């Protein structure tokens, strides 16, 4: 009995090591790819890359929360605001170094996530959506209430991060920012990749699929759900901190409800629960606004139209995706492909 148990434990440990090793490999590959990309890209594109990378951080956390643990959050834009303002205060006012400031911003947001998550475990579906909606709408107003601390409507401005002198004076700022954001994204990727494949990941899926069965199996449903919320809040906090570093600004206008809804769109687009999908979603969030701006310019549409075009597309995507492909766009592409193939086959047959 004990021998079997011991062997099982060894086996489990080996699987654990394997996952860890694979996660590490994935992280290294991602880091290398990002490095090469940042070297090849123009400085404007490096800035877009940096934006995409912090979006990846928050989207990866959100997609794990919604896809894996089955909880919906409309508050992740506001959680990003917590991280962004945290980093802005620590860097701008307290003159902290970059890494500890980002770590602290992540931790602060995780604590806020713990509070929100503890409440969230008792809420389901529309109730959770409504509560996080209230959070998303309500939080930005704090910047106005405590304007001496948070800078009111104008927000807080921080100095751009200085690249270490060892890297040479020719390193463009945008590339350095992309590297910082890339480091954050790789950490998030590594952590979530392992989390998803760990016992906690399995527990989250079990809780999502059937809470009662999961609790009968001895899983602590509330704890698993709170953990998921804390992890994804931490990711949002890091994303917010990175946003402050990349844009050198934390202002309430950047964290309106529409940001939270855009995040939701991005994970629905990528397919809920998929880290690869989070990367696609991040690309959409960065590229869509500039594309629509270009299109609007070439058709000489007014700024009223062009500035609202991305949101209109997000809304349309959410509605259409849910009506046409309830499992997300990835599933939809697969289903669409199958239908196309069937059509071709039937044409040929007929």
């Amino acid at each position, binding site marked *: 009995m004990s021998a079997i148990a011991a062997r099982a434990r060894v086996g489990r440990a080996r699987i654990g090591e394997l996952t860890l090793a694979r996660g590490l490999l994935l992280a290294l590959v991602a880091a290398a790819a990002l490095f090469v990309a940042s070297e090849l890209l123009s400085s404007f594109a490096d800035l877009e890359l940096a934006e995409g990378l912090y979006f990846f951080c928050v989207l990866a956390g959100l997609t794990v929360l919604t896809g894996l643990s089955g909880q919906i959050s409309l508050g992740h834009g506001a959680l990003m605001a917590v991280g962004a303002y945290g980093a802005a205060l620590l860097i701008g006012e307290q003159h902290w170094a970059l890494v500890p400031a980002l770590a602290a911003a992540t931790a602060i947001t995780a604590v806020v996530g713990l509070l929100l998550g503890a*409440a969230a475990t008792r809420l*389901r579906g529309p109730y959770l959506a409504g*509560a996080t*909606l209230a959070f998303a*709408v309500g939080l930005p107003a704090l910047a106005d209430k405590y304007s001496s601390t948070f800078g009111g409507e104008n927000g807080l401005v921080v100095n751009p991060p200085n690249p270490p002198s060892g890297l040479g004076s020719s390193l463009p700022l945008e590339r350095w920012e992309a590297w910082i954001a890339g480091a954050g994204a790789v950490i998030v990727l590594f952590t979530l990749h392992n989390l998803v494949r760990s016992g906690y990941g399995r527990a989250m899926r079990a809780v999502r699929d059937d809470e009662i069965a999961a609790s009968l199996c001895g899983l602590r449903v509330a704890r698993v759900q709170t953990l998921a919320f804390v992890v994804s809040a931490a990711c949002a906090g890091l994303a917010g901190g990175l946003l402050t570093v990349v844009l050198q600004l934390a202002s309430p206008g950047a964290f309106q409800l*529409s940001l939270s*809804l855009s995040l939701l769109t991005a994970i629905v687009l990528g397919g809920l629960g998929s880290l690869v999908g989070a990367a696609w979603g991040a690309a959409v969030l960065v590229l869509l606004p500039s594309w629509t701006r270009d299109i609007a310019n070439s058709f000489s549409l007014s700024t009223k139209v062009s500035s609202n075009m991305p949101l209109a597309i*997000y809304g349309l995507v959410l509605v259409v995706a*849910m009506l046409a492909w309830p499992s997300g766009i990835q599933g939809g592409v697969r289903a669409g492909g199958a239908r196309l193939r069937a059509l071709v086959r039937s044409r040929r047959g007929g």
Partner: protein
Amino acid sequence: MTRFIDLTLNGISTGTVYAAVALALVLIWRSTRIVNFAQGGMLMFTTFIASAVINSGASYWVGFVVALLSGLVLGALVERLLIRRVAGAPPLNAVIVTLGLLILLEAVAGMIWGNTPRSFPPAFSIRGYDVGGTRVLFAPNDTFIVLVVIGVAALLGALFRGTALGLRMRASAFAPEVARLLGVRVGRMLTVGWALAALVGSLAGVLVAPSVFVGPNQFDPILVFGFTAAVLGGLDSPYGAAVGGVILGLALSYVSGYEGASLVTLAALVILLAVLMVRPGGLFSTTRERRV
């Protein structure tokens, strides 16, 4: 003391508006088990339409009626074109569809009318009544708000309680399958329900517009307040929605008056969470515990 009275009066006026939004949400929750997050966008859109009508030179009352009618049409369209298609899907899908519609409406409104909030006229004077030489924070327009919401709620009550259509609608909401077996066209009843709910929402939009201004995002807090009020009263109960709206209006009026207007939405969040923790079925529920 006069400040407290002022805040109370103001709370009653805003509370009736929240009650109307809550009522719009409750009517839909009862019949389709969907929280219509798009309601904030829908009432924003119809208020913009009213604003456009009034700005084109028509009287306030023409704009008022146009807002209500466009709400009726918008509600029916949303049910027919979108909601009907997610009826059998997991609840998360319906939530996402209504959220998608919310940003879509906000974006389209921004495209048509721009993102800068614009003013909206009140129906009647907003100069407070003169009571014994002091001016109180309650104006003829507030009287109008309270009366028109009560009037519409009473009409709805009469419709639901006193007519065959209302009986069909209630049956469809409570037991759709049984209703169909009894020959009730349940789909049609859902469309009518969404249309009526959206009408009530549009009413709230026009009533609150003078104080929040009209803009694509101006009504987001109103949606939060309506949802909070609805949960406060128990999402299932129209009476609860009415009482919940007034209670929330009073609470938020005190918070706003004593602590500052920018804390109001977070205060609503605290109230919402407190209610959901302590009495998930709402303040007036008779069932003891319900999973939410």
